[in-house]
């Protein structure tokens, strides 16, 4: 693969209700900040990818609706294309467009405002209308089913998943973009109500509003523009079957496969040793444990013991979500792109909770019910 660089990153602050701003306003904020970060003007950008979901935006062709704010109408207009899904998938598409040889640079944008809709109804609409929707299934119910089957299979005690909340919300205290920042104890988490057992209220990622953008370029473009590049060493995107009832919910073959492919590209044999910091997409606390297993950081069924060992703390052997992760800021669609952005900041040495001497970082995004599809990125400093 030709070398692809990330040379500009930006995110808006995330908060529960940006009622004063439209999607387009958030998109413009992220786009202009990313251009500034890269030291570029909109005229320098070769093509644009926007990422969104029509149901959450409450309209169709939501991705094109932010075109003006993403610079797609600049001058005579630019090539713009779209992805419905997580921001990591938008970035994946943006990268492939450069690899096609057609463009030297891609601006990837993601936006979302969960405050405008009803997340239960919207994610209920993901389900099959004939058999599932009328029962009232939604993303939280799906996650609860997954947590239940994972805990049951490996006898994970509730305190181990609660640890992810305690760690991530504390990490978020220094992150000015985070939506939730708090010192919690395991008891606080386990005392919170259970809207869908075994999941506690505090174990659910918040519903945030916000946007993020990044700029991908060829090696020669990055050099020509004197940018501070971070390099893509490996990336893979895999999805498993759609029907929830037909999946083995205590495992994630799609994530396992995506991770193994990305590691192979990057020449990684031992991810726990070869990766210095990871930003992963946990929509609920238990997912940080389960995804750690499938990413190969620990053996299957050992996700609880792994977090309990303190290996994933800021000063641990492999810090996970030093930014605070999705448990602290969660604009669906945007959240995965923020994982890449936080990984880039770590490799630049500019992160809020900087991991010392970070040379290689992993970023992970997911999309769909209970982690149906996964995208894994390996980023390097050199």
């Amino acid at each position, binding site marked *: 693969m030709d070398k692809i660089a990330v040379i500009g990153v930006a995110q808006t602050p995330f908060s529960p209700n*940006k*009622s*004063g*701003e*439209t999607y*387009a*306003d958030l998109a*413009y904020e992220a786009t202009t900040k990313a251009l500034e970060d890269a030291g570029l003007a*909109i005229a320098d950008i070769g093509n644009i990818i926007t990422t969104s979901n029509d*149901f959450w935006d*409450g309209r169709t062709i939501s991705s094109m609706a932010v*075109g*003006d*704010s993403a*610079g*797609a*109408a*600049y*001058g005579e*207009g630019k090539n713009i294309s779209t992805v419905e899904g997580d921001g990591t998938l938008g970035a994946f598409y943006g990268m492939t467009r450069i690899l096609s040889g057609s463009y030297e640079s891609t601006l990837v944008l993601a936006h979302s*405002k969960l*405050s*405008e*809709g*009803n997340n239960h*109804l*919207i994610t209920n609409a993901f389900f099959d*209308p*004939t058999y599932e929707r*009328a029962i009232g299934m939604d993303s939280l119910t799906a996650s609860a089913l997954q947590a239940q089957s994972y805990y049951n299979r490996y006898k994970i005690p509730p305190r181990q998943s609660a640890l992810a909340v305690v760690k991530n919300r504390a990490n978020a205290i220094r992150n000015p973009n985070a939506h939730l920042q708090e010192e919690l104890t395991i008891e606080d988490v386990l005392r919170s109500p259970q809207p869908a057992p075994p999941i506690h209220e505090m174990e659910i990622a918040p519903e945030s509003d916000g946007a993020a953008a990044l700029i991908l370029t060829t090696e020669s473009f990055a050099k020509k523009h004197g940018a501070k590049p971070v390099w893509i060493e490996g990336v893979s995107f895999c999805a498993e079957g759609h029907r929830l009832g037909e999946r083995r919910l205590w495992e994630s073959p799609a994530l396992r496969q995506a991770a193994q492919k990305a590691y192979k590209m990057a020449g990684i044999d031992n991810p726990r040793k070869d990766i210095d910091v990871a930003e992963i997409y946990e929509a609920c606390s238990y997912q940080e444990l389960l995804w750690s297993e499938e990413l190969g950081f620990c053996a299957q069924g050992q996700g609880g013991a792994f977090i309990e060992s303190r290996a994933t703390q800021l000063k641990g052997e492999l810090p996970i979500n030093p930014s605070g992760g999705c448990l602290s800021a969660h604009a669906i669609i945007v959240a995965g792109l923020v994982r890449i952005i936080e990984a880039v900041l770590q490799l630049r040495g500019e992160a809020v909770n900087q991991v010392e001497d970070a040379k290689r970082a992993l970023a992970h995004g997911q999309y769909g019910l209970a982690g149906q599809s996964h995208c894994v990125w390996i980023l390097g400093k050199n």
Partner: protein
Amino acid sequence: MVKKNLNLLTLTNGESFQPFRYALGSAGARFFQELKDNNRFMGLRCAKCEKVYIPPRNVCGPCFEPLKDWVQVGPEGSIYSFTVLRFAFIDPETGEKKPVPYGYGFIRLDGASTNLQHFLELPKNGDLKIGMRVRPVFAKNAQGNMRDIVHFSVDGA
């Protein structure tokens, strides 16, 4: 018995609906406030290309510049394009079927560079034509939304 059930080939969605709270943004909020309080159309002008946007938004796409200069446009204007609807569809705002026929068109308000979409009252005499002058008829109880304009009328414009 099975044969009888083969009539069940579709399933009705039921009474479910999607509630949304769409942000107006600073531009939309000002536009509707002026419309409601003063029956006035306010647009935003691009300092670079001088295009006046109605309804207003915060970015000029072609220039990629933020918009800040408010200008009053209209209230009269001319028909940019139109159609006459003769089939009724459910109005997404009211859930009611609007009596047919009625006019629908793009109105270029005086001083604006973009078109406003709204209902057109069918003239008492003759037909609608592109370029005809129109004036807005405002609702008695303004709410701060597009329904504050009943329609645009060619009569008296």
